[in-house]
Structures are given as C-alpha cells and as structure tokens.
C-alpha cells in the first residue's frame, strides 16, 4: 500500500507529480481548466482508494501479521502484584471511617483486661454467666486476686469506652475497633476470637432517636443509601433501653432471598442507651483516681453500639467459613486484590 502511495503521490517521483509537471504546469491557458479538473478527479480517486484500503479490516489484519516485533497484547503483565489488604482490616477501616466522618475519634485498649473494666463497670452482676470461665478466656493464676482485678481476655471492646470516659469528660464520640475473645466452640460462623467495632456517643440530651438516626445514617454510608434499618428490643447489661438492629437485605433489597433466610432482613448489630449504672461506675472510678465526677445521669446520656466485623465481611464478600480469614491462605487473600 505504501508502494502504491509512493508511486502515485510521492513528492519527488510520484505519477501525479510527473503528470502535473508534464501536462498541468505547461498546459496552455485555455486547456488548463479542463486538464486541472481531470487531474483533480484522478487525485481524489487515488486518495479514496488509499483511504478505503487503509480502513479495511483485512488490511489491518495483514498489517499486524506482517509487522515485525508485534506484541502479543494478550499475554499477562509481568510486574509483581502489590500485597492485598486483609478483608477484615479493610472492612474495619471502612466502618471506622464512616464514624470518623461523623465526628468519632478512634479509641484503642488492651486485649488483656481486668474484670472491673470488662464486666463490673459495665453493670454485669457478680454471678453473671459471662463471667464464668465457660464463656470467658481467663489468664492463669487469678484465683487469689479480688474479683475486680482478675485478668481475662476482653469479651468486647466496651472496656475502652469505660477507660475513655474515665480519662475524658463529655462530650465524647468514640469508635473502638479491636480483637475480642470468647470461650466458644468454633464452627463455620463462630470463632473464639473475632474483631469488633464498637461506638459510643455521650453528651447532654442524647436520645434513643439519635441512636436510631446515627446508625441509620452509618448503615446507608456503608451499604448504600437504599438500605433500611429497624430495631428490636434486646438485652445487654450495659445499655437500657437495649436494641438489636437489622438492615434490609443488601442482596435482595428486602424481597427475601437465601442469604436473608427469606426474611428480607439481616441482623447486624447490638446497641442501646448507656445504662445509668455505667455512668455511675465511671464517676466512682474517676473519684477514686482523684478526678471530678463528670457523668451526672440527670444531665448526661449517651448511646453505644457494637458489631462483629467478620459477619459484615462474610456477608459482603460471600465468605462461607469464618476460619478462612485467619488461615492466611494466599489463594483466599489474593481474591481481595
């Protein structure tokens, strides 16, 4: 094709140049018009033939086949892939981020806690079943200590709420991600250790409708604006009123499918208004540490909520067995790239 172009349109020895030189330029003035028209018609037809050939697929195929050093663009790239964020870490960061944008600071605390921070201050009565070694993992050799000083693996991240309130006066907005532990038989959906994100909002005049509004907003930020929430009465020692929150099924939009067991709803978190007994325990400890009480229950109220990260990650990514998050199997992790 290039040869054809050169033969006809070449600037030095193309036929059109030769025709132009031999005929057009030297033509008498009265013939110039006619010859000029015929010359132009010839030029247009040659250009059209060239452009048609260039656009034809056959030509393109031929061209690529015959081009030396053509690349096989279908071979895989060779750069080593970046590492993959852990799905739990990523999910946790997303949840924390949503609350961060709503004014919540991140709080962290120890994984080995005392009975005081894990249970007593959170209004668990001394003989509550959760305090039993059947339900809680405990550190060895604690029997000689007073109950409140005994060490155990925290069963929730709520102790960080207590520690923060002892340190800080209201207003307080806190989101607490972290590992927690239960002495449980492990199966496809339960592990003895799991990740939790809890939140706390304390101020004067915080209400149950604020709890609902905050969580509804957070769920829409996490799962999309069409997600709905609904609340059921529940029971936790450290909140009153207590609630379980469900979201409309993110797979079927609430119509009912296998994932939501045809109910249209998925249970996602526990929440409630902070029990006055918790504020009282915090103020007692503040006084014990020489600080002024700051959580007068006649003026201060608040809400708290907590959710399991594994459950949310399993739901989002379609993971059937919670154990996979902890195997570090590259074949599993790389799917989150």
């Amino acid at each position, binding site marked *: 094709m290039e040869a054809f172009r050169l033969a006809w349109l070449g600037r030095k020895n193309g036929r059109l140049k030769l025709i132009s030189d031999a005929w057009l330029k030297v033509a008498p003035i009265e013939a110039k018009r006619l010859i000029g028209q015929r010359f132009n018609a010839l030029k247009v037809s040659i250009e059209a033939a060239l452009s048609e050939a260039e656009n034809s697929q056959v030509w393109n195929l031929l061209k690529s086949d015959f081009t030396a050093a053509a690349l096989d663009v279908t071979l895989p790239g060779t750069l080593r892939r970046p*590492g993959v964020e852990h799905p739990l*870490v990523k999910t946790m960061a997303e949840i924390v981020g949503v609350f961060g944008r709503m004014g919540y*600071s991140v709080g962290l605390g120890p994984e080995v806690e005392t009975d005081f921070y894990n249970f007593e201050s959170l209004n668990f009565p001394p003989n509550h079943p959760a305090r039993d070694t059947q339900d809680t993992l405990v550190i060895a050799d604690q029997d000689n200590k007073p109950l409140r000083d005994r060490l155990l693996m925290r069963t929730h991240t709520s102790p960080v709420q207590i520690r923060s309130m002892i340190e800080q006066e209201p207003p307080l907005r806190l989101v607490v991600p972290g590992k927690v532990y239960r002495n449980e038989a492990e199966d496809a959906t339960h592990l*003895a250790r799991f990740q939790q994100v809890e939140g706390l909002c304390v101020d004067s005049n915080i209400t149950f409708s604020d709890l609902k509004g905050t969580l509804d907003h957070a769920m829409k930020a996490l799962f999309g604006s069409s997600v709905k929430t609904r609340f059921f009465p529940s029971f936790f020692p450290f909140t009153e*009123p207590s609630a379980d929150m469900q979201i409309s099924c993110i797979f079927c939009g609430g119509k009912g499918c296998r994932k939501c067991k045809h109910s249209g709803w998925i249970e996602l978190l526990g929440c409630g208004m902070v029990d006055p007994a918790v504020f009282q325990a915090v103020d007692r400890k503040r006084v014990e540490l020489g600080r002024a009480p700051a959580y007068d229950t006649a003026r201060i109220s608040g809400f708290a909520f907590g959710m399991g990260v594994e459950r949310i990650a399993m739901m989002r990514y379609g993971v059937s067995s919670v154990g996979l998050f902890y*195997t570090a199997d590259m074949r599993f992790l790389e799917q989150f790239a």
Partner: protein
Amino acid sequence: MNLLTQWIRSYLPTLPVSDRQLAEDLTLRGIAVEGEFPAGCGGARFEMDITTNRVDAMNHYGVARETAAIYDVPLQPLALGEELAASRPGEGFPVRIDAPDLCGRFTARVIRGVKVGPATGDIATYFAALGQKPISAPVDATNFGWLAMGQPTHVFDLDKVQGGIVVRRAVAGETLHLLDGTERTLVADDLVIADEAKALGLAGVMGGYESRVTEATTNILVEAAWFDPAAIRASSRRHGLHTDASHRFERGADFAAAPAANNLVTRLVVAQCGGEVVGPLVDVVVSETAAQTAARAPIQLAVSEVARHLGTTLDGKGIAADVIERFLTALGCKLLSADEAGVYHVTLPSWRLDLAREIDLIEEVARVYGYNKFADTLPSFTGIVVELPHMEAERAVRSTLLALGYSEAVSSTFASAEEAEMFGPAGQSVAMGNPLSAEAGRLRPSLVPGMASMLAGNLHRDVNEVRLFELGTVFTGSTAQVDEATALALGLTGKAVAGTLASANDALFYEMKGVLEALLAKFAGAVTFDAEHLPTWFEPGRGARVLLAGEAVAWFGELSDAEAARRKLRQTCVLADVRAAMLLARPLRQPAVCELSRFQAVVRDLSFLFPDSVRWEAIAGALQGLAIPEMLQVLPLEVFRDPKGKAVAVGQHSMLLRMRFQSDERTLTDEELTGWAARATTALTVLGGTQRAPE
C-alpha cells in the same frame, strides 16, 4: 422455649389478631418469635427466643400479659390466689426454713388417696403439641404449672418424707440420688429440701429419686417455693444440671406466685388422680426477702425523663402521660397519679424483678410503644476528632508493605508453651487459665511462630509464592502483670526479586533486607545492620539485626533448619520480627529536598578482588572516608564468587563497584576524576583489595 397460641389465647378471649401478626408484634417488642409452626392442638406453636432478663415471659401467661399490653385487650386473671378449700381438715404440714437467706418462701400442701396414672385432657393435648414428654399425671401437673405461669413446683411421695420438711444448706460430703439417676456429692453451699433424716432434693434444680412420685404413690406433698437466684445458679453450674426449674429460679421467680402455683398443681392433681386435699396450705414466708421482692418500695418515674432519654417520635407528638400510664398498668405496675412535677410513684409487679429503676420503666415504655415508631435524628456535636498518635505511622507501615507485595494476614493470639519459649523472651510468656486447646496454652509473645505456621499452611497446600505481614499484639510478663505491645512480622518464601549481588541461594534474605530498608526509610533515624545478638531460631550465619537510630528494632533471617524440619517446610523461609511499638513511636521521616545540580554527573567503575573477610560496610566506609564532597554515591554493581575457585579463588570475591561524582558549581574535569579514582584505588588496596585489570 415453645409456646402454643391456643394456650396464650385462653387468657385473652378478645384478642383480635392472627397468629402471624401476633408473632410479628411480639418480636418487635422484644419477645422474639423465632419460628412459627402449626400446632397439633390447633393454632400455632411459637419457637421463642426470650432474653435472659425476661424470665416472666418464659411461660404462656407472661406472653399473654405482654400481648394484652400491646393490643390494649383485657387479660383473664389467673384466679389462683384464692384459697383452695381443704376437703378434709388437718394439721398444716410441718415446714422449717433453716437457710432463710437462700429460701424466701416455701408452700406445702398434702393430697391423700391419689391414684397415679397418665395425664389426660388439656395437659395431654398441650404436651403433645409442645413436644413436652408426659411422665405421670402429678409430674405433668407440675410441668403444666411452670408452662402456664412460670413457677416451678415439685411433688413428693409423702410416704417417703420422714417427719416434716427442712430447707437447709447441705452438709459437705452429703450424697443425694437425683431424679436423673445420678448420685451427687454436695457441698455446703448447696441448698437442699430435706426431711428430718435426709436430703430429698437439690432445691430449685432437681428432685430426689427416692422421694419421687411413682405409680405406687398414694399420698403426695406439693411444693412451691422461692429460692435465691445466685444460690440456684451456683448449684446448677456446680453440678452441671441445667433444668427448666433452675433456668427460672436463677433468673428470679415471682415471689408472689408460690401459693397460686401450689393451688394450681394441687387442683390439677386432684382433678387427674382423685384424692383429697388435707389441711391448709402451709406458707412460710421470710419477711426480709418479701420486702426485697414482692413488696418492694415504689419508684419514681418523671414524664419528662421519658422524653429526655427517648427523643422524637415519628408522629412528632412524643409519648404522652396517658400512654405511659396505660402501658405500665397493662404490664402489672400500679401508678399513683402524677404530681404537679409530672412524677409518678410506681409500684412494681412481683414478677418483674428486672424492674428496679426509672430507666427500667422508660425502657418498658419504649418497648411497648415500638422502637420503630421513633424518628431518626442526628445529635449535634461540639467536640473534636482526635487522631491517635501512631495512626499515621501505622498507615505508612501498611501502605509500604502492601506496595512491596506483602499481603496482610491475621493469625491466632495464642501459642503453645514450646513456641512461646522458643520465640519469646525466656520465662516471660503468659499462661491461659482455660486454654482453648493444648496448642493455645500461652498468649503469643511473638508473631513469628504464627507467621511460620501461615507460611507452612500455604506450602502444604502447594502455594509456593508467599509474602505476608501481620501487625498485631504480643504479650509478655507474667500472669500477675501482662504487658502488651504492637509487633510486626514478615514472612517470605518462593522466588525472590532478582538482583545482581546475591546468588539465588541468598536472594530471599536480600529481598527481605530490601523490604526492611524501604520500611525503615519511612522513619527518622539512621538504619544499620549487624549480626549481633541473634535469636536461636535463625539458621546460623543467615540472620541479621536491624538498628534504627542505634536501637535494635528488627531481626530477620532464614528460619533454622531444625524449625523448618519440625514444620515440614520444603523450601527456604525468611522471617522478620519487627518491634513495631518502638517503630511506631518514632517520628516519620520528613523529606528534605536537595537542589538538583545543573552540571552533569559522571560515573567511574572499579573492579576489585577482595578476601571474604572484607565486607561491603568496610569498602563503602573506606571510600566515604576519602571525604570527596563531589562523590555522591558508591554502589556495588556485581558481586561474584566462584565455588570452583577457578575465576576467583575460594575465600575471595570479585566486586564491580560504581562511584558517582557531581558538583553543584562546575563541570568536573578529567584530571579531577582520574585523581579521585586513583585515591579510591589506593584506599581499597589498603583495605586488602586487589584491582583487577580492566577488561
């Protein structure tokens, strides 16, 4: 537990809704109906999930009471409080409470001349529909009693009881043959129902075998009592016996219900088995316990507090005083009309020991009103968001390692005692009191064993290219005082990033070194490497220590052959143990830019032979020691060893190194460059090197 709608409806003659609607409305009010199935007797069988604080709703009448509150329909009174007349006069049965702190009330009634057979009528029909195992009419009557109204009761074969009933603490070591056929040795904290001679049953948990009602029984003693929740719970856990009775007593039974339940069971036994009620109902009450339960002092409820805690309702009207009054009354509270300040004095129902404070009543109001009828509002906020000091550093660590191709992993917090000793500081691992398994007996003092297991796990599944990191907590100290710190581990196995300096054998080590260099470059402070004070889990000569600003901050190297063999690792694994807590506490490096020179840089390469005792550190040091300001950089380009000793003698290596010169002020001249190269050659020769002839 299971409940029958037909049974619930028997207390609610005007209930207008379907079973399906009832299930939904109960669930929305915290009395969760988890499943709804057709019942053999008609209506539905509800599978309930009732929270532990609502023992009052773990029976048919309790759920009927909730239903009445929801729909504002009348609830049939149980009408059992009235005295059941004795058909034959007699003395009250002797009852003595020797442990008044643990037993607050004990009622007893004698029935004589019964004929024990299977139960018939409602009991049989309902039990079949519920799947409740029928035993005999008198025992079924007691089960009917708690299913109906929540109060556990017991029937004794009266002829096996010697003298009267004594409620007492067990004598340590005393044995008791229980209904389930087991023989239990009691401790002094166990509460028993005894006669003058022996223990008859484990109070609130299970009756005794010898005094049980059988087909041969003709005389019966009916018991209904109230026991201390904590004592029953302790006994039940101690003996591993969780029964329908203990489930209710340990959550707080209705102090006022004992006589009513005794009457109900007595009535049912007589109706089913004949016989005569002999003598009055004996009712021994411990007044202190009564004052703490059934006769609690009224509490206050301010209408304004309801709005302060609950906020805005969807209809914008809030919850009016008359609504509060109606809900609480339906639940069994007695309200003295509100005073001018809008404060009610509320007498609490005997069956709701979970209600004790104003907030408990507010929750009841919210619950019956319906949580989803409250608006979604957002609170205003005057505080600030504070970021944790190490968050930025932690993000830098994560993003650097991810960019370098390392994926994040999360492993177990626990380690075996053996691993804890091998990988952690000696004698400083923390033992668990109730480990999940023998391999999880300690808190991990290091992330390294977990990382080695994760590499092994991949290799055993034929995944041979593994790059992982874990950022997590490690634990040291003792069971008296546990210290927690953030640690970082890296694991690498497979094909290393290719380099020209290291043989294929050593390449993994140098990749890991490169990763640590890139990571530590994020932080302020000079980074140096040595091979001092290495842990024992490294293969000798194949590990290194990393110092940041003079402080040991990381160790890395090849896992020892012994450890690798123990874990059946088929290929070399390089691991790094980073003291992340120390790292994250350091400031991030603040980049400071040098002006770029307008003049061209020039390189000069040198080729030298060195004895292996001369390390790169010495070579670079010697060249930097020349103090030539224009010498910007010195790099090794190639290192070569010949195992056969032909091209390069064994014990020596050849090195091609490159020096880079540049001035900010002028173009460098040939004379300068030649001079500097000559000084470099001399310095390296002094070091023990031999210049190789230019090829």
